[in-house]
């Protein structure tokens, strides 16, 4: 069974009284547990919006078309309360957002601990794990620095450590290599690959970067709010692949 399964996913944002943006116009997507998927497309193609829906941050629109379906680990996500979706985000998902989304008053290690505490870890446990994850991304010696004292790349790696702190089944990352130089970028891809292969963690990476795309199992290409193509780069889990819907 797919880890994430969505059908008829639509999302319209109202920008003004008459100005609406149809960010997603009916998308079907299926992501298997243990897959490493790239979500690619030009700006405004709806890839970030799709990531927000898959990450249970937003609910798909119910009106103007067939009823949307969205399940995570076999659970119907369209009927979940805010509290349930929050709990799933805390315990089973990890997020890396565009730009450096760290809490400015907290140190690097405290930022990573925060996600652990949201998932119910004690402070001590959260701290131990946070230090281990910072070590993993090569930032252990910067643990007590505030975000303002870290470079863009360092902040990005703190965000990645935070996404990994609870060993989530699914990691959703928006431009994870966006602020990294090519060496750091390659290192990070290596780490993601390793976690994906060794721990079976599922990754969905929203990216512009073709190099990131080719490092994945599969690329879902989007344009104008629709999935235009699904490319198999290499296929570790043969069988069901996501289908494009128009």
């Amino acid at each position, binding site marked *: 069974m797919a880890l994430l399964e969505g059908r008829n996913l639509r999302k319209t944002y109202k920008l003004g009284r008459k100005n609406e943006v149809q960010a997603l116009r009916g998308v079907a997507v299926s992501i298997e547990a243990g897959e490493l998927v790239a979500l690619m497309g030009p700006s405004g193609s709806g890839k970030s919006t799709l990531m*927000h829906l898959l*990450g249970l*941050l*937003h609910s798909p629109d119910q009106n103007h078309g067939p009823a949307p379906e969205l399940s995570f680990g076999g659970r119907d996500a369209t009927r979940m309360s*805010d*509290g349930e979706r*929050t*709990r799933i*985000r*805390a*315990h089973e*998902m*990890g*997020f890396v*957002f565009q730009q450096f*989304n*760290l*809490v*400015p*008053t*907290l140190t690097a290690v*405290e930022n990573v601990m*925060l*996600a652990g505490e*949201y*998932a119910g870890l004690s402070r001590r446990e959260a701290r131990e794990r946070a230090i281990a994850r910072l070590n993993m991304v090569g930032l252990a010696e910067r643990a007590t620095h505030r975000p303002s004292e870290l470079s863009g790349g360092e902040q990005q790696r703190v965000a990645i450590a*935070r*996404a990994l702190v609870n060993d989530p089944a699914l990691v959703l990352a928006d431009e994870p290599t966006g602020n990294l130089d090519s060496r750091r970028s390659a290192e990070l891809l290596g780490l993601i690959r390793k976690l994906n292969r060794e721990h079976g963690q599922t990754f969905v990476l929203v990216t512009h970067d073709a190099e990131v795309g080719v490092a994945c199992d599969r690329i879902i290409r989007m344009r104008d709010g629709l999935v235009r193509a699904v490319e198999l780069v290499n296929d570790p889990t043969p069988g069901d692949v996501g289908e494009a819907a128009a």
Partner: protein
Amino acid sequence: MSLLRNLARRRLRTALTITGITIGIWALVVFGSMANKISSIVAIGSDYYAGKIVVTDKSGGLSGDSPMAIALVDDIAAIDGVAAAVPGVSTLLDPESQDGISMPDMIVGDLPGADQGHRKHPVQVAQGRALAADDAAAHVAVLGSDLARKFGKGVGDTLEIRGMTFEVVGILEPTLTAPDATALVPLAAAQEMFLQDLPPVVRQNVRADQLATDITVYPAEGTDVEALATRIEATVPNASAMTAAEFDKVVGSSVAIFNAIIVGVALISLIVGGLSVINTMAMTVAERTREIGIKRAIGGSRARVIRELVGEAGLIGLLGGLLGLGLGSVVVYLANEAGRSSGTILFQLTPQTAIFAVLFSTILGVVAGIIPAWNAARLDPVAALRYE
């Protein structure tokens, strides 16, 4: 820890908000202490009048020291329902002093034993002894606590009052009210001093032992006190009979006005302090929209966001309350110390007032923080993340 760090982020704004609350709580503490003092004076007054009737000459008023003929004691004692009638003399310790604000130092002449055991709530003696029946002709005095301190006298010392020398035989427990500034002496001595005060025309026609300024009446068991007071006023010409109920009525209305002022101060500090906390927290939420979005996105629950912000608001209230209480106690202490020598003790800061003030401002902060926190918790995490 992170609450304090968040408050420290906008030091000036937080400091200003805390200052606002501090001023409100300061006012609450100072006015509250003044109200405490007044109600404790009133309570002692109520106790003093409880179960007895104080008869004075109509022209004298509440603290009146108009002369009455001591012969009236027998007239009153003969009235139906009177168990005992005791003459007393109250007069200013120093007739020259007129500061007008505070309780003046008083001499009270008493006839120990004449109440036949009816007197309740006597002020306890801290050192030495109380006046006794066989002191009647002696020049002995029991001093109120403030007077003893003012004159620097202890038990066994001698004290000169209006040209008469008294041996101090006892010091009263402090009551924070009138008895602290009172010297209790045997009736005869007080009558002697009171006589000196009277205009020469009157003085030539009376003897000291014919004088009283008040007659305390103890009603017999089961007598209606109010009805007895009416009977006394009807029987004794020019008499004013004061009962506990009447005292409460007269004094109660001025206390009520004062309490209304306290409630007003509390309300103003509630509104001003509350609005400034709401404002501060609303700005905080606006500034931290992005941060709140991050926290919600990575799994922070709404309740957690609310807890954090309400905690911050409560901390602002608590700090304002503690500072206000601290400042208020300093003012109360300094004002009381400055007034002690002249007997002007205006404030009484009770533990209840202190606890109420701090609790009040903390709850105020929490309540004011709820609306902004609730708004923050309802933010769409994705929109909040994109917020610039």
